[in-house]
């Protein structure tokens, strides 16, 4: 900043070009908490002041300060003292805040009248919402009401929503879009360890001797975590890197060993690795005997998967599998991360559980460098899980444990019967069926965009627009889903409200209000509190059910709810969280500074009275009965659950010969609602592509950059081709692209399947069978158009000739010619079609 003619002039400042160099320059290191500071900043003007916050893209939870000038966000910079990033930010963090300032933000409620969305006052909007809610509830029961929420709200908002839905309205139809991203992560941790608490820490990168990424393109999904891994790889004693991914992603390209299984074959590969490790005797027998149950069954199962059979089923060469097993079996410490390549693929929970099993049989748990990170995706996805908006009861409580339900009833001061404890709560894919058949009549969507992110979009659009469904959409923008809405509520975004959210390694951060929301937009919390008040939701003594009036009050209520549970926030406060860095839960009397790692004592959350679930059959999804679980109460031992391979239901065949798999690009986020409104991010990845091997491109006569038509049994999409970096037989499409900024069928989910993992109920978005062909190039199109035009001219001439002849015939009085005329016209009509 400098002064010219007495006026302050502001300057653009960018510490690095994160579009061209996603991960920036290296700061090599080794050793726990030795990661050097590097401050990334991007400001369009000098900030008048900085407001402490946290990056709202991805679950790394980077500490970030928001630069404000004249009531607007003008820049962001990484916070040097935060444990998640030590100053760094990725490209989405540095650029994505542009969305807040976007001129097309929703600023007023909209209500549909006579088929069109028209501006309405808040009073009108909330009155309509309450009137319709009461109508549906009173006539059709609370089972006709449903809530579907995103992964980017704040903890305080999720918890308030859970109390409203579960205790106030009494509906079990409450789910979050984390069902699409990380439901299997939670399910796998719960099946193995008793609760979905993340055992590991990002600090495990600092000391791990080997790192395993399974279906986790960390370089593009968690850019700052990848910077840390790259810095370790460049420093002394670099960790070995093993990557399992069907594509040669930037993550895979950096690996010492890259295994590329065919879609849907994670279980055979992981079983094969376990077999080699057990066979070589590289297991910690003492740990297995003292702290686990089920080793014999696991050993028996993986014994059926010799490397040659794994190769046959997955396409992973036996030699590659052996090389990976050598690293994973020999390393004294191991950090494993798992993500969508597992969670959205076949046998999601079963496969993710095998990664837990790898750590359990090797005894690599609870020590520095020995983390398992069943990664989250979205910044606040963890909070949706913790608070009860994504399957479990609030505080990782167990639906099937009456004592847990009674705790909540006491906490909320309601009858236990008020809570729909016959649960579990309804996953979104099941809700869609209920909507389809007309038994759910009201759906309230908050901060998510199902019209792009759910599978089989033709069906989704039909459902959202269905007669008899009252659809409420609450968002910052008029997204594709809002186009179907009966009522649209304008929501404040991150930086426009205060609240907390929690990263993939249990680090709780606060994000303070930096600017005001635009127009009449309101924080989700304010809307929910207003709704609870207007619906007159009360506790058993007739007092208001929701007893808080702001975010701080909601946080206090949540502290009480989480007390004593694995996700214990009782030692946290807004004041503590507003310090130098985020703090990991559990934070309580036992862990006043937060616990860096869980289960250091080898005692897991599996005791019958503590566990979050009694578990499931990994193949059928059948629940284990309370009596069965209690009869074999693991009492703190981890469960080694084996899984045999189940082939995907849809596999390539003669009609649809290719695998389609889906995923991310680094510059876009979810359905691009925010990232596409940053000029730089959108310019870096402006449109979707289909990535295919050169061999496949040659077979289908497709050139790089050419438009391609893709078809599945459910729908079609048209996008441009990009060649290389993927195995023949598989094509890849990013899932971000919808139609709000450019019409057309270009979403990957036009093609995907409506089926899901039996345990976590997470949809299988990672595979579908497709066929494709090139859309002819403009030159070809022009030649064809000319040819068609020529045919038409010829046909028209022919018709004219016939007409003249017919006329001549009629003039001559011949009846036969009249009969011939329409027939001739029909013939030419078919020829020109």
């Amino acid at each position, binding site marked *: 900043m400098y002064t010219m003619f007495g006026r302050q002039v502001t300057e653009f400042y960018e510490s690095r070009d994160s579009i061209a160099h996603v991960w920036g320059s290296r700061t090599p290191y080794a050793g726990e908490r030795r990661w050097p500071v590097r401050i990334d900043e991007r400001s369009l003007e000098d900030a008048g002041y900085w407001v402490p916050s946290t990056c709202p893209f991805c679950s790394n939870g980077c500490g970030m300060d928001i630069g404000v000038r004249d009531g607007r966000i003008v820049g962001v910079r990484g916070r040097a003292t935060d444990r998640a990033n030590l100053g760094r930010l990725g490209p989405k963090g540095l650029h994505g805040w542009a969305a807040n300032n976007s001129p097309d933000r929703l600023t007023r409620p909209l209500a549909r009248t006579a088929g069109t969305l028209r501006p309405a006052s808040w009073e009108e909007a909330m009155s309509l919402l309450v009137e319709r809610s009461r109508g549906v509830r009173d006539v*059709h*029961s609370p*089972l*006709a009401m449903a809530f579907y929420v995103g992964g980017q709200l704040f903890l305080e908002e999720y918890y308030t929503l859970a109390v409203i839905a579960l205790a106030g309205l009494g509906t079990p139809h409450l789910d979050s879009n984390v069902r699409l991203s990380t439901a299997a992560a939670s399910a796998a941790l719960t099946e193995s360890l008793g609760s979905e608490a993340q055992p590991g820490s990002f600090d495990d990168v600092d000391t791990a001797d080997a790192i395993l990424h399974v279906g986790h393109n960390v370089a593009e999904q968690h850019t700052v975590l990848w910077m840390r891994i790259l810095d370790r790889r460049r420093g002394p004693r670099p960790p070995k890197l093993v990557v399992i991914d069907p594509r040669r992603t930037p993550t895979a390209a950096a690996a010492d060993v890259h295994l590329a299984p065919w879609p849907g074959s994670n279980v055979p590969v992981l079983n094969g690795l376990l077999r080699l490790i057990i066979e070589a005797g590289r297991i910690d027998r003492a740990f297995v005997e003292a702290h686990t149950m089920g080793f014999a069954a696991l050993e028996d199962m993986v014994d059926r998967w010799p490397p040659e059979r794994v190769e046959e089923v997955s396409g992973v060469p036996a030699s590659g599998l052996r090389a990976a097993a050598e690293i994973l079996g020999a390393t004294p410490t191991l950090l494993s991360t798992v993500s969508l390549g597992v969670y959205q693929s076949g046998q999601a929970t079963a496969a993710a559980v095998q990664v837990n099993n790898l750590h359990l049989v090797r005894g690599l748990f609870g020590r520095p460098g020995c983390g398992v990170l069943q990664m989250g995706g979205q910044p606040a996805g963890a909070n949706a899980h913790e608070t009860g908006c994504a399957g479990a009861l609030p505080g990782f409580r167990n639906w099937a444990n009456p004592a847990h339900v009674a705790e909540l009833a006491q906490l909320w001061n309601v009858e236990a019967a008020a809570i729909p404890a*016959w649960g579990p709560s309804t996953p979104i*894919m*099941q809700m869609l*069926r*209920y909507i*389809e*058949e*007309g*038994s*759910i009549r009201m759906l309230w969507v908050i901060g998510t965009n199902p019209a792009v992110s759910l599978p089989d979009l033709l069906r989704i659009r039909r459902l959202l627009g269905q007669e008899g469904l009252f659809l409420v959409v609450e968002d910052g923008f008029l997204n594709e889903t809002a186009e179907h809405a009966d009522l649209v509520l304008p929501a404040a975004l991150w930086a426009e409200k205060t609240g907390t959210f929690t990263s993939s390694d249990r680090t709780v951060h606060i994000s303070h209000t930096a600017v005001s929301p635009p127009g009449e937009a309101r924080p989700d919390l304010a809307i929910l509190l207003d709704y609870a008040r207007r619906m007159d939701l009360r506790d058993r003594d007739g007092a208001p059910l929701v007893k808080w009036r702001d975010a701080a009050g909601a946080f206090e209520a949540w502290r009480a709810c989480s007390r004593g549970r694995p996700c214990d926030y009782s030692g946290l406060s807004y004041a503590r969280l507003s310090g130098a860095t985020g703090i990991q839960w559990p934070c309580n009397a036992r862990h006043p500074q937060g616990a860096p790692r869980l289960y250091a004592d080898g005692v897991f959350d599996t005791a019958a009275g503590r566990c979050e679930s009694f578990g499931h*059959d990994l*193949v*059928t*999804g*059948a*629940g*284990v*009965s309370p009596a069965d679980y209690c009869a074999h109460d693991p009492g703190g031992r981890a469960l080694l659950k084996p899984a045999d391979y*189940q082939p995907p*239901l849809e596999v390539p065949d003669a009609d649809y010969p290719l695998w389609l798999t889906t995923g991310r690009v680094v510059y876009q986020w979810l359905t691009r609602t925010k990232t596409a409104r940053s000029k730089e991010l959108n310019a870096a990845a402006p449109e979707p592509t289909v990535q295919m091997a050169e061999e496949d491109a040659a077979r289908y006569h497709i050139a790089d950059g050419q438009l391609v038509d893709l078809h599945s049994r459910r729908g079609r999409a048209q996008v441009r081709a990009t060649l290389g970096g993927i195995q023949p037989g598989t094509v890849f499409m990013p899932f971000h692209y919808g139609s709000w900024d450019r019409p057309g069928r270009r979403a990957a989910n036009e093609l995907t*399947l*409506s*089926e*899901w993992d*039996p345990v976590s109920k997470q949809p299988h978005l990672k595979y579908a069978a497709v066929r494709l062909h090139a859309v002819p190039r403009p030159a070809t199109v022009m030649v064809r158009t000319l040819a068609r035009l020529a045919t038409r001219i010829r046909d028209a001439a022919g018709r004219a000739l016939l007409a003249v002849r017919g006329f001549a015939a009629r003039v001559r009085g011949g009846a036969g010619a009249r009969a011939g005329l329409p027939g001739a016209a029909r013939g030419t009509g078919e020829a020109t079609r």
Partner: protein
Amino acid sequence: MHVRAYLALLEERERQLADALEALADVHAGEPDVSAIGRLAAQWSRQHVAALAELGRRCSGDELPQPAPAMPLISLRPRNGRYGLLLDLQSAWLLAQDVHLRWTVLGQTARALRDGELERACGTLGAETDRQVAWLHTRIVEVAPQALIAAPL
């Protein structure tokens, strides 16, 4: 000895269970999980049928079995909709329970006969029937409230 006759009876029941599960999967194809797991569970029962035929051949010394009663335990007229799904799941559960009990009966007999092979078969195959029962029960419990309270008539 009635062992061979009993094996034939169980074989017939397993066949009925497989048919019922396949019908469930077909009629409720709009429920992807019912369809997928139903088909898998039906496959298990088909394998049980083959295994039982094999076990029956081992008992060739026994008296010829009475023809198994053809009377099905449940009516196989699958019904549409949420309420129909509930009823169909119930029917399949009833049949699976019957099969489950028969594996238990046969297992007891195998122990008394000191027939290790039959006992092992009853253990492993009966365990799969257990899983069928548990799955059907889980799905019934999930669907019941929505089917009986909220589903349109």
